[in-house]
């Protein structure tokens, strides 16, 4: 029922549940505010928004007083203005007017409001504590003098982020914004508190004093660190990225805001807000490099591209196009993945194009079909319960994790967390935590599926699940049977269940099996939906563009003759029919004369390190196209082509929901670097193609035509009862199981070049149970050596009593601790851990040392 009221003589109708402030703003009437934020629940602390309401004895705060039928509201009467001016004077009494030196000047709510209410100093004089700044964390600083105690930071941390790491400490005049026991912040370091601070009290330490609001340019962009696709602004000044911040349009202060706030709901996480400075890292390659006499030396673009083109042409004519292969990346835009596919298929004439999506996204797609990726975050929000399995989404898809916390806490949704590692969700958000033995996640899910299908069909499980039940699941996963049966009972009663899993490293080697088990569980439940979360910013776009050996646009299969001929018609060429080499084929010893690696540090990130080394060693000619001279480039590249970051190019990125979002170039390329689409185009022209792309948008237009011509074939969802292969044997005589997972502060190899994020995690750390450390004779903070598959990684050890005793956790993404080197071809690896040998011997891959478990 809409409500009609009068504000300053103007009749306004607003939806039920609106406040007086909502109504006034709808009527275009300004009411000053300080502690109000559409992003937060009304608080009514600052009293700046007072108005007079007829028949109300005193002025009312409009931000938290509901509008009612027939209300007569006045916003500009003498008592209202008097009250507002008084409040402003009291606020200014404790606020230093150091605006000339403040980062916030020009976009400061206190400045705006003081201007509007017409007060610039306090009759009460100035009484500022003049205290030094507090460093809340390596990235966040608090200036107690500027704080106006509106509590927005405390509230956003609680309401939106869910970390509740900031509070009001002490009371009355002495109260201040602080942390637990005045220690450094214990939170995800997302910096939402900085974003929401109305004055310059909470500050980004990397950004401080680098530009005033009126000196910076803003460009709309999309965060490139994971697949949620949070919309953001890149702030630049004179060709340099100063910082990234949430898109202010999404945090519009107009109430009654029904605007779609995008996949990130207007928020950013640590990676998005602080992980931008790799763009200007000194390690950026600024011009092409060619290896001469064993060293990489600077060269011109002409030289480099001609060399690459000649090598490709020569290999093609001497050994055939199928000896040329490319590896692309989910960090590249849609346009670029489309063009690399066109380059390889049309110009080179081979289907040898793949990426690390081969290990997670593609097997999931092949098992479930494209329909399984047809979901939205809004749909997720409407689930009654979440079963989150495997990698922690607070680490891999942080903003989605924060949103899920809100759904759990504010809407009473149930969260069941299944993981081998502790999560920030465990104690305060998850109703149930199942600590699963690494590598047995799919057996847990399959066991639940068998039990639930048996329950729903009065005892007869489908033929394929005959061998599974909760007992087998308990034995396989190491979880108590009672926990499993309670979980099954809870899921059966839960209403709609969202089965959520991140397509991350934990899935390598078992992605297809897990997807099958998840589909089985979905079939066994009355109402369930699958939410496989893509890993990289454009993992989904890469696959949709057909940038895979056996893929064509719109998730069509590589052997789909109809799609192939349609694409061939559009490109005016006959496309190769031969089976392309997948990344696995390449790693298991294909004969490659030219290997073109784009945006992937194969030597550091491949799961089968030995094979990657062999591939790189044996490839006749290696081209690396990247922002940095990564380990692949340094050791193996014959040519390095300098590419640009997301901030230096325009392009679209398709997020995990399939939403294609455009990121706008914010700065010109650093040095002589070029956008990947431009490099592909120039290379294609050198190889005799007649491409006419002028910019990324012209590629986007072509993609639109291609996608329209080759629609997704939504065959009936390929869900069906399926057996799983036997549990891999992981019992390695006293060895530990290696668990790897994304680390929020380490978004891939590129993220390691961000010095902001490096402040949070200086070095890779292996976490073990304290009892295990004691057995090894290692203290917290000492080094351990971890060995498997002929590789030896030495890292600092840390005790974590929330881990199981038989596992060791090592995060991925650190070039200095190449987890990939430890992982062989299997999904779960048993590793030997021992006290690290003296420094002189570190690095020599000596098997078996003293104290080995």
């Amino acid at each position: 029922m809409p409500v009609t009221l009068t504000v300053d003589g103007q009749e306004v109708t607003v939806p039920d549940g609106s406040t007086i402030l909502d109504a006034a703003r709808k009527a275009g009437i300004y009411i000053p505010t300080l502690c109000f934020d559409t992003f937060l629940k009304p608080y009514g602390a600052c009293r700046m928004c007072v108005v007079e309401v007829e028949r109300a004895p005193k002025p009312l705060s409009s931000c938290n007083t509901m509008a009612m039928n027939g209300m007569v509201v006045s916003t500009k009467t003498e008592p209202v203005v008097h009250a507002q001016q008084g409040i402003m004077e009291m606020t200014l009494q404790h606020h230093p007017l150091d605006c000339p030196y403040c980062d916030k000047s020009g976009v400061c709510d206190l400045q705006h409001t003081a201007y509007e209410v017409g007060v610039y100093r306090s009759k009460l004089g100035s009484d500022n504590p003049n205290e030094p700044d507090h460093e809340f964390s390596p990235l966040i600083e608090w200036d107690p003098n500027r704080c106006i105690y509106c509590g927005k930071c405390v509230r956003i941390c609680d309401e939106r982020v869910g970390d509740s790491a900031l509070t009001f400490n002490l009371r009355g005049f002495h109260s201040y914004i602080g942390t637990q026991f005045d220690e450094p912040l214990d939170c995800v370091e997302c910096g939402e508190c900085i974003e929401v601070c109305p004055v310059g009290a909470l500050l980004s330490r990397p950004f401080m004093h680098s530009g005033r609001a009126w000196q910076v340019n803003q460009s709309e962009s999309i965060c490139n660190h994971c697949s949620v696709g949070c919309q953001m602004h890149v702030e630049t000044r004179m060709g340099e990225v100063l910082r990234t911040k949430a898109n202010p349009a999404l945090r519009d202060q107009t109430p009654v805001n029904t605007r779609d706030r995008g996949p990130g709901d207007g928020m950013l996480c640590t990676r998005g807000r602080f992980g931008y400075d790799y763009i200007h890292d000194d390690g950026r390659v600024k011009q092409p490099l060619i290896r001469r006499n064993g060293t990489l030396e600077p060269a011109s673009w002409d030289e480099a591209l001609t060399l690459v083109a000649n090598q490709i042409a020569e290999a093609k004519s001497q050994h055939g196009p199928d000896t040329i292969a490319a590896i692309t990346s989910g960090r590249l835009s849609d346009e670029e993945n489309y063009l690399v596919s066109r380059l390889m298929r049309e110009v080179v004439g081979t289907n040898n194009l793949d990426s690390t999506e081969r290990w997670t996204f593609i097997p999931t797609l092949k098992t479930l079909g494209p329909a399984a990726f047809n979901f939205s975050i809004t749909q997720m929000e409407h689930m009654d319960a979440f079963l989150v399995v495997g990698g922690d989404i607070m680490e891999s898809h942080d903003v989605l994790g924060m949103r899920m916390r809100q759904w759990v806490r504010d809407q009473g949704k149930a969260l069941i967390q299944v993981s081998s590692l502790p999560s920030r969700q465990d104690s305060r958000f998850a109703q149930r935590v199942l600590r699963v033995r690494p590598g047995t996640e799919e057996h847990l899910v399959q066991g639940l599926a068998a039990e639930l299908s048996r329950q729903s069909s009065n005892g007869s499980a489908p033929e394929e699940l005959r061998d599974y039940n909760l007992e087998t699941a308990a034995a396989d996963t190491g979880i108590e049977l009672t926990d499993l049966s309670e979980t099954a009972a809870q899921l059966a009663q839960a209403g709609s269940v969202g089965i959520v899993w991140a397509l991350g490293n934990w899935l390598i080697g078992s992605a297809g099996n897990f997807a099958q088990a998840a589909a089985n569980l979905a079939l066994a439940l009355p109402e369930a939906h699958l939410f496989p979360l893509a890993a990289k910013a454009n993992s989904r776009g890469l696959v949709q563009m057909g940038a895979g050996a056996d893929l064509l646009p719109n998730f069509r299969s590589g052997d789909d003759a109809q799609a192939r001929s349609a694409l061939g018609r559009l490109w005016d060429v006959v496309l190769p029919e031969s089976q392309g080499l997948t990344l696995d084929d390449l790693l298991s010893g294909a004969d490659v004369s030219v290997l073109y690696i784009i945006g992937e540090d194969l030597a550091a990130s491949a799961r089968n390190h030995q094979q990657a080394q062999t591939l790189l060693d044996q490839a006749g000619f290696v081209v690396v196209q990247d922002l940095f001279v990564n380990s692949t480039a340094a050791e193996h590249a014959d040519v390095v082509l300098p590419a640009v970051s997301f901030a230096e190019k325009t392009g679209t990125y398709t997020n995990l929901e399939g939403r294609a979002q455009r990121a706008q170039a914010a700065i010109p390329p650093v040095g002589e670097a070029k956008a990947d689409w431009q490099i592909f185009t120039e290379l294609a022209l050198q190889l005799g193609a007649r491409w006419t792309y002028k910019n990324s948008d012209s590629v986007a237009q072509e993609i639109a035509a291609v996608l329209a011509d080759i629609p997704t074939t939504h065959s009936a969802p390929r869900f069906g009862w399926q057996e799983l292969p036997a549990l891999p044997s992981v019992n390695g005589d006293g060895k530990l199981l290696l668990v790897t997972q994304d680390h929020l502060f380490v978004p891939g190899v590129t993220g390691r070049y961000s010095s902001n994020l490096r402040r949070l995690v200086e070095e890779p750390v292996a976490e073990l149970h304290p009892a295990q450390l004691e057995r090894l004779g290692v203290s917290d903070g000492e080094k351990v050596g971890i060995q498997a598959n002929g590789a030896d990684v030495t890292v600092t050890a840390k005790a974590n009593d929330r881990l199981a005793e038989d596992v060791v956790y090592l995060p991925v993404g650190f070039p200095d601790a190449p987890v990939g080197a430890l992982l062989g071809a299997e999904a779960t690896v048993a590793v030997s851990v021992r006290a690290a040998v003296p420094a002189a011997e570190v690095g020599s891959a000596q098997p078996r040392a003293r104290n080995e478990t």
Partner: protein
Amino acid sequence: MAKQPGKVESAEATKYAALSRDIEECRQEPGSTLDMLHAVQRHFGYLEPQAVGMVAEALGLTKAQLYGVATFYTMFFFEPKPPVIARVCVNLSCHLRGAQDILHTLEEAAKEQHDAFEVEEVMCLGLCEQAPALLVNEEAVGQVSAEEALAKVQACVTTISG
């Protein structure tokens, strides 16, 4: 590895175990935050951070939230305190009847005895008719001279440490 000899450790362990029994008892009641914080202070003499972490876990709150609550109250401590605390009222009636003398005497004595007890100024204890009044730990003492007050405190120190 770098743990202290067994005895100290087990004394600490006993405290944590006792605390976790108290937490279990308190959590049956809604709104038991302050009760649990009091339990921490009872066992440790102050709000020991790790113990506050246990309370946070039990309540589904963060340590920061509990710190915010605890710092609001003046009778929670964040560092170890002497076993005896004398809280001297300095409000009007007590002031008029010599609260400052008591305060001064106790403070001097505390200093001489190397902080065997602690002296705090507090606002009204609700004992105006007994002015000048003070609390020696949980015992209310009124209508005393500075010397009598000190004797009372000394007696308490002797009882507790003896």
